[in-house]
């Protein structure tokens, strides 16, 4: 068996080198398409992390007028307690609102200076049972005595999520097309390799080599192309993760929640490797389909 491995390794290497330009083209297309694919997965993961925070966070905020009466606040609170669609809520007092304001704008002391805690309205931050109920809840509290306005995060968040989902689909489509073209390139490389070696294949069949014995060097050739391409993509995805993490860490506020971990990058990397190897093997299998006609 050791000897056969020797044979397969040698034949595979010789064939890879003989078609070096086609081989490189195959490897690079696999790399680019899988990098795009991995990059999209990575961004999706970021968005998942980001929206996961939002989902357990505030979906709508009921702002009072600057100085609501005790009664007005209590009425709203009682109504929130009774509403089945409300999961939980939190009262933000004038002072608390001021603390949050100072936190959000900590790099702009002039702005903080200009704001008087007394001018900030108190509010309720409400988490609905189901994000889909946000609008219903907002409508319920709109225009109540003492209520100035009800702000929902929904529209902005959902518009952004829609945009991201379109971008995601677009990138998946592009990487799909590139992946298909890398498959065709590998099919073509293997077909050329079998053509270059048709005399050898003819002899092999004549003296009774099994079909698997004939196929294995070509399948390895495809596998290696796919795997090297995927390896490059893996490295690039890992690099992208480092860059994005760095950007996120240096960013402010809400973007902090769009983190990605090295674990995310590694998980995606292995998906990318598996796809690369799969494309390589399938490509060579298709390329080999006609070798029986030699």
């Amino acid at each position, binding site marked *: 068996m050791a000897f056969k491995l020797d044979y397969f390794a040698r034949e595979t290497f010789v064939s890879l080198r003989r078609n070096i330009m086609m081989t490189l083209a195959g490897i690079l297309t696999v790399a680019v398409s899988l990098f795009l694919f991995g990059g999209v997965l990575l961004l999706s993961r970021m968005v998942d992390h980001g929206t996961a925070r939002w989902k357990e966070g505030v979906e709508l905020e009921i702002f009072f007028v600057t100085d609501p009466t005790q009664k007005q606040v209590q009425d709203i609170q009682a109504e929130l307690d009774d509403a089945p669609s409300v999961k939980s809520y939190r009262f933000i007092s004038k002072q608390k609102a001021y603390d949050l304001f100072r936190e959000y704008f900590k790099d702009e002391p002039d702005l903080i200076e200009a704001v008087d805690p007394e001018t900030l309205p108190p509010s309720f931050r409400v988490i609905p049972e189901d994000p889909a109920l946000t609008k219903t809840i907002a409508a319920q509290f709109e225009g109540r005595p003492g209520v100035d306005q009800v702000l929902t995060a929904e529209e902005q968040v959902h518009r952004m999520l829609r945009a991201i989902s379109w971008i995601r689909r677009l990138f998946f489509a592009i990487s799909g097309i590139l992946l298909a073209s890398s498959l065709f390139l590998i099919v073509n490389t293997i077909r050329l390799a079998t053509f270059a070696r048709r005399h050898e294949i003819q002899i092999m069949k004549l*003296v009774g080599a099994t079909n698997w014995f004939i196929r294995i060097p070509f399948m390895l050739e495809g596998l290696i192309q796919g795997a090297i391409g995927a390896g490059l993509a893996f490295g690039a995805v890992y690099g992208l993760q480092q860059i994005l993490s760095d950007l996120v860490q240096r960013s402010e506020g809400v973007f902090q929640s769009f983190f990605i971990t090295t674990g995310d990058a590694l998980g995606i990397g292995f998906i990318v490797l598996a796809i690369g190897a799969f494309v390589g093997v399938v490509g060579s299998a298709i390329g080999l389909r006609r070798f029986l006609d030699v």
Partner: protein
Amino acid sequence: MITLEHVTKSYKGDVVALRDVSVEMKKGEFVFLVGPSGSGKSTFLRLLLREELPDTGRILVAGRDVARMSSWKVPYLRRNIGTIFQDFKLLAGKTVYENVAFALEVIGRPRHVIESQVPQILELVGLAEKGERFEYELSGGEQQRVSIARAFVNRPLILLADEPTGNLDPATAEGIMRLLDRINRTGTTVVMATHDEGIVNTMRRRVIELDRGMIVRDQARGVYGLPA
């Protein structure tokens, strides 16, 4: 060793290559297949190798039903059959030694077997000194000897030869025939398709003549043409 029962084979366009052929060849026989071009000689050999399937009829080679055999078993059938051709079919990028070793390598024979078998067979075909030569450094006769070495290195039960002397001058052809005769004497069944009248008449072995896909003569110790 080889049995055909009512074998018919036609190609696309209603060209009938073999028509209801029944014949039996025993172990150790030397059989000439003669007949004009297109009489079905090559189809006969291709059927034995299962490069083609018959339309009807039964073909037994070394006890196996060739037509009904599942395709994954075909390589094992072929390990029992050595084949040589008019155009030798050597691999140009390999030396004599490598050409012969290749045949053992690709059926998974271990290295020590190859290292003992190849020099032995090169000795048998008279090329012991030329193992490192390439195809272009050899004469036609030597090239055919390499292809015989490759076909016989695995000690097959049957040797099929399709016009093996077609590209050789008479003196060289005679040498090849002596080699095939020697191989035949080891008990190997040899089936040789040929146009070479001189060889057939000198050897005086069994002759099967095909004409338009039918056996028109089957004669022990025969000659090329019908005896007057």
